[in-house]
């Protein structure tokens, strides 16, 4: 277990696809993210957990380059995001339930446009492969706005993988799905992570999903990383029966964990 102020994330690792160092974001006097450091290695799925308002989405937005940090640095695949934004983002992609693909374009049109934005070579073949992998062949000419939640999630994931990212950010990717569809999506991502070099940063409020998918988790509370470790071992280290109970403690009594 590592407590606040003593997180020893291996941010210097040459294998890291994401290295976040001393990252902070202030909104006026409010400190949304406070000096956090962590890394994501290749072939690793890291869970970024925490209660609402803990700073997860703020952190993800900074990594995506749509929110400027107050201080600290973000390095993606060895490229400093602040200095070489476009180059760093060419190696990144993301999917989130709150950022669906434009509903007024078809699945194929959206994939073509995002493929062009990410400078994907052999785009036509890439799109065909993704439509096939995500079982979207039948919906290629369907506008994304009329797809079901599960289909929209699959389309969003196809977009997220169009540039074969080194770093994949998934902000509650299964939030709007039924358990069966969520399980299929989870399996797709796990299989993709296994066969590629991608590093994945995954946020979720489903602790069973996190235990199943992530090899490491970082618990955020009030903008700081409170705990970090293996999701299968962390609960017992803190006297909790499972990750969900640990999450509830982080949300309600973070000070009790800081004393550990």
């Amino acid at each position: 277990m590592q407590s606040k102020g003593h997180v020893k994330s291996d941010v210097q690792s040459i294998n890291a696809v994401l290295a976040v160092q001393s990252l902070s974001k202030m909104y006026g006097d409010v400190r949304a993210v406070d000096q956090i450091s962590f890394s994501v290695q290749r072939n690793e799925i890291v869970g970024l957990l925490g209660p609402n308002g803990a700073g997860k989405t703020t952190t993800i937005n900074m990594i995506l380059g749509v929110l400027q940090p107050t201080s600290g640095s973000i390095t993606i695949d060895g490229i400093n995001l602040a200095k070489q934004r476009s180059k760093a983002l060419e190696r990144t992609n993301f999917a989130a339930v709150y950022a669906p693909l434009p509903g007024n374009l078809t699945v194929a049109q959206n994939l073509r446009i995002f493929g062009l934005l990410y400078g994907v070579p052999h785009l036509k073949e890439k799109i065909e492969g993704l439509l096939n992998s995500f079982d979207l062949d039948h919906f290629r000419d369907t506008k994304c706005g009329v797809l079901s939640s599960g289909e929209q999630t699959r389309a969003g994931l196809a977009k997220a993988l169009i540039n074969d990212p080194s770093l994949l950010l998934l902000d509650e990717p299964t939030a709007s799905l039924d358990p069966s569809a969520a399980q299929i999506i989870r399996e797709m991502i796990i299989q993709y992570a296994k066969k590629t070099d991608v590093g994945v940063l995954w946020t979720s409020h489903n602790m069973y999903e996190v235990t199943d998918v992530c090899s490491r988790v970082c618990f955020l509370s009030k903008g700081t990383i409170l705990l970090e470790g293996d999701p299968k071992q962390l609960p017992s280290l803190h006297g909790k029966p499972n990750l969900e109970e640990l999450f509830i403690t982080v949300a309600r009594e973070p000070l009790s964990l800081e004393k550990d």
Partner: protein
Amino acid sequence: MHFGRVYAVLLRILYLMRGSVTRLVSPIVWPVLDIVLWGFISRYISQVSQPGFNFATAFLGAALLWEFFNRAAYGATMAFFEDVWSRNFLNLFSSPITIVEYLTGLVLAGSLTAVIASIIMIALTALVFGLSLGVMGLLAVPFMLILYGFGIALGIVGISIVLRFGPTAEWFIWPMPMVLAPFAAVFYPVATLPKWMQYISATLPASYVFEGMRGLLAGHPPEASTLLIGGGIDILDIILACWLFHRMYIRAVQTGLIARYSAESIS
């Protein structure tokens, strides 16, 4: 500059225009209605006015050029609104696209609609009302270039305002050309305006075009220096508009507006 990314912004607009007939209303139906209206007004005025100055040509020519300016201004703004309405900012700005590439794509999309509208308007004025841009000779080229530049500058200012104040500010954007029209002296000489309005008029590139057009039709072509001043102000306006957009974008990234952009969140 990565042209593939610029093309992506343009392609999105092409897909949308192809996929929805209603999107053709703005670049086609409004200009056609305007030309029809001003065509008949001009025809009536030419019937009741004294021989001499050709009011019909002056009015219809002014209406044609003003509508061209409007299309250039609205074209880029409409392309931007497509991303606003579909809440595409997070996907778009988390991609490698730079704001220069994005703005270039919007301007090209705006230019496309301006060209479509112009072709239709020019054909309509020639076929139905017998006015050809040929009466302006080669001067039609600098006239249209200056109006195009000014329209693009105004469009970028509109985009910047919406980026700063949110989607609800769009109702401030649509009347902007109408607010400028009295100062631009579209249908009357600048000398008609009170002195304080003339000072404002002198800062608008469009006023040099419309003064030049009326002078040309009266047999007094504008001097090259007049067009150069209009063109110079044009370039300055475009630079200032791009600077404003850059400032608004930087501010949106610092405050997080880009990430949570919607009518509900920032209006």
